[in-house]
């Protein structure tokens, strides 16, 4: 059952990026469609035998108004696979299917016919793309830095006002500094504008013209094209190259088009970081709690009550933890931190720093959610340490803590690791509570970057499990995004598997050290 599920997810997930042939369907109503066959089904027919029909991914959304179209077998006059049929992934507007026709430079045709046009395109495209990335880098990093400097200066002014009042020399100095920074920022922004404008003007020189299957001419800037391929012409290795290129984009890039295209890197990062931080929190707390319960607390009604409470915690719906995390971590702890350390930010533009969802709070919430798992597993591991070992240690003159630290804990470590693995597997796939405490549809700033203080645990982040929900059910063109859902799911399963395999590996190494030999 589980295997079947995993095989299904894996197959669908891995297939998404493989270039599928583009087929041209000549229809009885004189239309011609160019697209990928994605599904095939038989439907009942009132008069006659059931007819079969095909689901064709037609795309060209701006022309057709749809991404997919059902085509009855009976309506098809002719099917062929034109050699030069091209699939193009664009920055915006989804995919485009057509045949390359003309290459334009500075508005003038520079190449005619599919082959010449495409050769020209492949020659120019890498440079255009690199200029595009350059401009984007300036927009994202340099302008971002200027914005941060401006905000820091603004906050310094507000802070000076709060601390010393408006008449103080500190305040005057802060205002002067802000003015200076504003002046510098305006200069820098002007420079950035010039640089990006130059890059974009250079890119705008190149355009490519396609003709659709219905004979409509479409002209688009080369810079808008992420990649293009002719699946009908491609050899097996050529297809593999396209496939790997798409995987690479998927793994290392930011998302595009409302998350339905591009990469999912921020979400991978968020998932892994959150799971690891969660493990870092839950391990010591869970182990300490279990140690106390098993080794120190005398067994009585209170201890059993605590045990029952812990077991009940495991059954609380996860969204309740989300609500608790939002109410306690964000609104009580976070707001408290903000009032103490980030007052200026609150006063300046009412923008909470820790007082809203973020990576730290999400990790803590999940740590709480998985705490019972770790406690129960650790208690069991402690109970499984043979009494003879403890007695041996006591007989050597060891105290209680020495016995626990040197004998009991090392022996119990593999079992504790098992609990942690279960906790991580549970935590990494949890979505509901995360939606309340910091996971966002789109969060382009990672919680760790080159900006001081480099680690920003208060930042909101993306998460694969939430991305599945968002892409699959919230996306404007959910059918086009459906293959992505499988790919992201596959990725999530793979990441959880990798985290678990790593933990199992560590546990295996520990276990080998403490292997018991029976005789």
């Amino acid at each position, binding site marked *: 059952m589980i295997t079947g599920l995993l095989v299904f997810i894996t197959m669908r997930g891995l297939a998404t990026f493989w270039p599928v042939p583009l087929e041209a369907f000549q229809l009885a109503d004189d239309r011609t469609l160019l697209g990928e066959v994605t599904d095939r089904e038989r439907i009942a027919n009132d008069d006659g035998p059931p007819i079969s029909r095909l689901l064709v991914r037609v795309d060209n959304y701006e022309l057709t108004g749809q991404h997919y179209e059902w085509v009855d077998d009976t309506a098809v006059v002719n099917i062929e696979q034109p050699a030069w049929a091209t699939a193009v992934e664009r920055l915006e507007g989804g995919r485009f299917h057509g045949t390359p026709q003309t290459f334009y430079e500075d508005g003038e045709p520079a190449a005619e016919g599919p082959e010449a046009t495409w050769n020209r395109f492949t020659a120019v495209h890498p440079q255009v793309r690199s200029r595009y990335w350059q401009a984007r880098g300036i927009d994202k990093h340099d302008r971002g830095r200027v914005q941060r400097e401006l905000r820091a200066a603004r906050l310094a002014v507000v802070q000076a006002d709060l601390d010393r009042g408006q008449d103080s020399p500190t305040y005057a100095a802060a205002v002067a500094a802000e003015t200076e920074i504003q002046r510098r920022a305006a200069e820098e922004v002007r420079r950035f504008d010039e640089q990006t404008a130059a890059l974009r003007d250079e890119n705008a020189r190149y355009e490519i013209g396609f003709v659709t299957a219905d004979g409509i001419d479409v002209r688009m800037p080369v810079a808008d094209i992420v990649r293009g391929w002719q699946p009908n012409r491609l050899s097996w290795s050529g297809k593999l190259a396209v496939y790997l290129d798409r995987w690479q984009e998927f793994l290392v890039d930011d998302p595009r088009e409302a998350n339905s295209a591009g990469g999912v890197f921020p979400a991978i990062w968020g998932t892994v970081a959150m799971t690891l931080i969660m493990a870092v929190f839950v391990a010591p707390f869970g182990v300490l709690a279990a140690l106390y319960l098993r080794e120190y607390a005398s067994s009585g009604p209170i201890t059993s009550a605590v045990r029952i409470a812990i077991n009940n915690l495991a059954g609380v719906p996860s969204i309740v933890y989300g609500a608790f995390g939002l109410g306690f971590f964000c609104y009580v702890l976070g707001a408290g931190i903000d009032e103490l350390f980030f007052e200026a930010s609150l006063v300046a533009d009412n923008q909470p720093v820790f007082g809203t969802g973020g990576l730290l709070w999400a990790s803590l919430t999940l740590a709480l959610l998985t705490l019972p798992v770790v406690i129960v597993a650790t208690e069991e591991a402690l109970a499984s340490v*043979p009494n*003879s*070992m*403890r*007695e*041996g*240690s*006591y*007989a*050597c*003159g*060891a*105290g209680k803590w*020495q016995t626990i630290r*040197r*004998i009991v804990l*090392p*022996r119990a470590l593999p079992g504790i690791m098992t609990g942690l693995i279960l906790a991580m597997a549970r935590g990494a796939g949890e979505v509901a509570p995360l939606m309340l405490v910091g996971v966002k549809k789109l969060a382009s700033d990672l919680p760790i970057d080159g900006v001081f203080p480099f680690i920003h645990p208060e930042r909101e982040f993306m998460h694969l499990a939430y991305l599945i929900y968002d892409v699959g059910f919230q996306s404007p063109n959910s059918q086009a995004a459906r293959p992505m859902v499988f790919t992201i799911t596959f990725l999530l399963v793979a990441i959880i598997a990798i985290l678990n395999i790593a933990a199992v590996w560590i546990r295996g190494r520990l276990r080998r*050290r*403490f*292997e*018991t*030999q029976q*005789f």
Partner: protein
Amino acid sequence: MPAPSDTQPPDTAASPTFAADDRLVAVAAGMEVPSEVHEQVSSEKPVLEIDSFNLWYGQKQALHRITMPIPECKVTALVGPSGCGKSTLLRSVNRLNDLVQSVRISGDMRLNGDSIYDRGTDVIELRKRMGMVFQKPNPFPMSIYENVVYALRIDGERNRGVLDEVCERSLRGAALWDEVKDRLADSALGLSGGQQQRLCIARAIAAEPEVLLLDEPCSALDPIATGKVEDLIQELRGTYSVLMVTHNMQQASRTSDYTAFMYLGRLIEYGPTTEIFTKPILRETEAYVTGRFG
């Protein structure tokens, strides 16, 4: 931990003498009988004195007014049918029974004159003065080396030279050195059962204890390993004071200087091993050590 006075046994000195045949029957009937302790025992210098020691597991009394001195630098064997309280007595010596919740005791023991059950006694310090080897080998989940020097480690000893020296001396003392000297860093759990038991002995003698407590050290071993451990006990005689529980009469007669026969929580007869095995005072003792018991 004073015991309720109503469960205190009556003073044995005033008890009537029993016909030899009837003693065990009398004990089984719940009566108190005096222990027959041979003269020679009291002539030895004792390292450990057990003094009117009683022990209860909950309501059940497991040790009845045990009084016996353990001679210094001699091997003393405890024999008796299963369940007669030998392990309980041994575990009482280093207060391992403190870990059992239901245990109550009365009476006292003294290690070289220091009270073991006094309120002010530091149990940890006390246990450091004794070594104990259990019925089943229980090496710790760590390397052979760390197992041996465990007692020193918990005392905070870090000097590698000292540790190395203790490790070698203890392993040689336990006749294990030649077998493991090339694999000291390996896990102790990879040793054979006999090696593990000798490792436990090495661990017990590492801190040079004043008494060595052995609870059926050979019961989990094959004859060859048993022979090695017996030889080892022979070598320890003279250097260490050993109190050893055994079910094996040959072993007791071969290895021990003194033998104590226990029955249902009482000390029945206690004397030099040769006397116990050849001319015991009580016929019950003779019956037990010759295997014609019960």
